[in-house]
């Protein structure tokens, strides 16, 4: 697992989860975004893995801690830990397998049941490079996303299409949600000291700011 480095320079740390059926390409989306790698010989994920990458949003450095897990049904039993503190989610389906799109509704229900209502969700139709095998129309997915009030993008981890955009959009939206929330309670997000985690989810979310400190804990 990725080690936490206290000295890293960032302003905000956001936890983002990847969810969706087995084999839709969650792990390759993660490796494309965090390491710019894609593996045709991909391995099935077991348990939970995560990776991080920092990007610039407006004038701030935002560090995304992205969690990836096995897609098999029974692994959903570990969700309380998986979803805890998540402020963003990419709900992934495979555009070539309609059943993975049908299951999106269940994933969404699960996600909403475990996270704060402010969580930023993006519906992601992955494997968009396989156009000739496409089994889920863009219109259907778009309509679903509008109805459920989530963002939507079609991506290809293989061709590196929209992967960057999808993650950046989610992180930017989180940044805005968090700023708005912080403003609502009268705080200036820019004034928050470095190294603090902004947590818009979880039961302990009273002030929208959760103090996390390694060295002063």
């Amino acid at each position, binding site marked *: *697992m990725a080690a*936490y480095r206290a000295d890293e320079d960032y302003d905000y740390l956001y*936890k983002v989860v990847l969810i969706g059926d*087995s*084999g839709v390409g969650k792990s390759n989306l993660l490796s494309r975004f965090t390491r710019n790698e894609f*593996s045709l*010989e*991909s*391995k*099935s*994920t*077991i*348990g939970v*893995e995560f990776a991080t990458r920092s990007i610039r949003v407006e004038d701030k450095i935002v560090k995304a801690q992205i969690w990836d897990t*096995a*897609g*098999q049904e*029974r*692994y959903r*039993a*570990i969700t*309380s*830990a998986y979803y*805890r*503190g998540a402020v963003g989610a990419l709900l992934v389906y495979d555009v070539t397998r309609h059943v993975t799109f049908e299951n999106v509704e269940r994933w969404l229900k699960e996600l909403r049941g475990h996270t704060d209502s402010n969580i930023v969700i993006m519906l992601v139709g992955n494997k968009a490079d396989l156009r000739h095998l496409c089994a889920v129309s863009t219109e259907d997915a778009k309509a679903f996303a509008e109805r459920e009030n989530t963002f939507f993008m079609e991506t290809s981890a293989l061709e590196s299409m929209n992967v960057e955009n999808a993650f950046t959009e989610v992180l930017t939206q989180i940044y805005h949600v968090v700023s708005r929330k912080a403003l609502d309670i009268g705080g200036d997000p820019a004034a928050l000291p470095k190294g603090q985690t902004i947590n818009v989810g979880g039961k302990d979310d009273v002030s929208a700011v959760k103090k*996390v*400190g*390694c060295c002063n*804990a």
Partner: protein
Amino acid sequence: MYGTQSKRDLALELQAQIPFLRPSIHARRANITVKFQDLYGFTVEGNVDDVNVLNEVREKVREQGRVWWALEASKGANWYLQPQIASISEGIALKSSLKLSSLANAITLKKLIRKGIPPVLRPKVWFSLSGAAKKKSTVPESYYNDLTKAVEGKVTPATKQIDHDLPRTFPGHPWLDTPDGHATLRRVLVGYSFRDSDVGYCQGLNYVAALLLLVMKTEEDAFWMLAVLLENVLVNDCYTNNLSGCHVEQRVFKDLLVKQCPRYALVYEEFLDIYV
């Protein structure tokens, strides 16, 4: 996670296949990467310094092998497979059956195993000491063949997930990632999914079964190793429908961490949010 880790473990147990390299200082400077297959067919890649470390490990494994052979010579072939020693190792020996010599042998064996079992002996030692041999002996000889025949062509959620995972289990492996490797792994996993419908198939078992196939040499022995692991060796319900055994283990780990390393526990709690 598991896959990577196992690969690394296997890599550390490198055997004769490794080219024995003595890199010059120049080579070291050049940071040349070396690529080769370990004894289970996994590709190991590293720079010359890594290979030097691996060579040292290999030498230790060889030394350990010599200890096994020496004991075999003095105590007799397969001394470690005597049922009495196995049962003491399992901690289920009856007091009346306890002989001092068996006890001494059991202690010796435990120490030996902890230092590593030579790869050629692993199929034998694992099969006997895990209880797999005993498990197999309680059913008719034809059990595994009958089972695989009976389930042929059946489609269940488990078989669907297995089929999905076969090409994603150690992809690129010279045998596992071939039609024959896929078919063999499939028979073991599908067979087991019908043997225990509470477990069925859980993602992750693909890696366990694949490694067992590589070590055990025969498909049937790999099947029984999988069975004994899931049914006797591991915590109950590690792989069942809600992974409850897994939750128990995490909980116990968390409690132990809080008790033994409270400062680490605090850091984990706050940064990784990893606990259930």
